[in-house]
């Protein structure tokens, strides 16, 4: 039996248990997907108090709609989708900005591209100091980009799974992640240069 089928069977057992009134099974679902929900809410929402409300709301919605879950995706992906949509709704309500406005053709704005990248040379700028500034530079990215980067590189989700969570086409997800990585690298390189001056 493939790992994917085993995951579906495990999800089916958990959902069936919850629908039969087993509350411990739902506590287990929370434990299993709490990390993913934390990743999404921390990257999309700045206010700690609102994160707390949103995280609770996500699992209450999941509980309420569990009988409608069709097992077309992993249970964690479905809960991730609820988390993303709940955060998106919050951002819209607060009139916040989700994504940066890159160029029409998907190119980075000119001011974001360092001279090194334009003339083709590349300095080895990344060293042991990277870990120190990486967190800050990720936080400087727009919510959508830091969410996508974290889901791919920290949660090990595939482009297809991220596309399901965000309801974006897979090609768009790839393109956004490419831009986000590029922006992150350019920003870090710029920071190194500023520190050197």
């Amino acid at each position, binding site marked *: 039996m493939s790992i994917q089928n085993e995951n579906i069977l495990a999800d089916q057992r958990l959902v069936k248990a919850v629908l039969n*009134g087993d509350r411990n099974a739902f506590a287990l679902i929370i434990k299993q997907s709490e990390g993913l929900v934390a990743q999404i809410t921390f990257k999309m929402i700045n206010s700690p108090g609102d994160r707390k409300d949103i995280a*609770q709301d996500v699992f209450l919605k999941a509980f309420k709609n569990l009988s409608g879950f069709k097992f077309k995706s992993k249970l964690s992906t479905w809960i991730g989708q609820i988390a993303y949509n709940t955060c998106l709704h919050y951002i819209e309500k607060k009139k916040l900005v989700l994504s940066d406005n890159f160029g029409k053709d998907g190119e980075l704005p000119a001011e974001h591209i360092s001279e090194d990248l334009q003339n*083709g040379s*590349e300095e*080895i*700028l990344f060293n042991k100091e990277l*870990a120190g500034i990486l967190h800050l530079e990720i936080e400087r990215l727009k919510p959508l980009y830091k969410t996508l980067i974290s889901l791919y590189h920290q949660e090990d989700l595939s482009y297809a799974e991220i596309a399901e969570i965000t309801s974006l086409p897979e090609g768009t997800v790839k393109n956004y992640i490419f831009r986000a990585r590029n922006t992150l690298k350019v920003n870090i390189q710029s920071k190194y240069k500023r520190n050197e001056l």
Partner: protein
Amino acid sequence: MIKAHLTDAEIQRYVTEPQAISQQMANHIQGCAICQAKAANYVQLFNNIKAAAKPAFDFDLSALVMEQLPAPKRMFPWAAIVVSVFSVAIVAVSAIFFWSAIAVSVTAVSGVLLTIAAAGALTILIFQVVEMFKEHQKMIDTILSQKILQL
């Protein structure tokens, strides 16, 4: 071998999905210091992102959610009802069918035997009541300890 440097998107794909890159591109990177440096930077960047601490809630999310869940809807116990009705029916039919035999055996049994049977049944009943009371006390203790933890 291609002479033009790989684009940034191709470098990223080389690092994250090396199987998706053409052999010509792979050959170029192997012979190009600039593209190798770009790829090395991305490798280091991705490794650092992966190694970075993951965010975590500083409160017990599970406990917060569990106390807000609506009471579970109890489904009508159809299976238990069917089994009960079936059992009662079997006993009733047996009693009707074997009534004469049962009446004969009851009148034939001595008073001592009847007393022993009644005492046995009473003992079992007492044990069951004690067991239920212990179970009830245990549940009350669990609920109280949970309430104290929440306070």
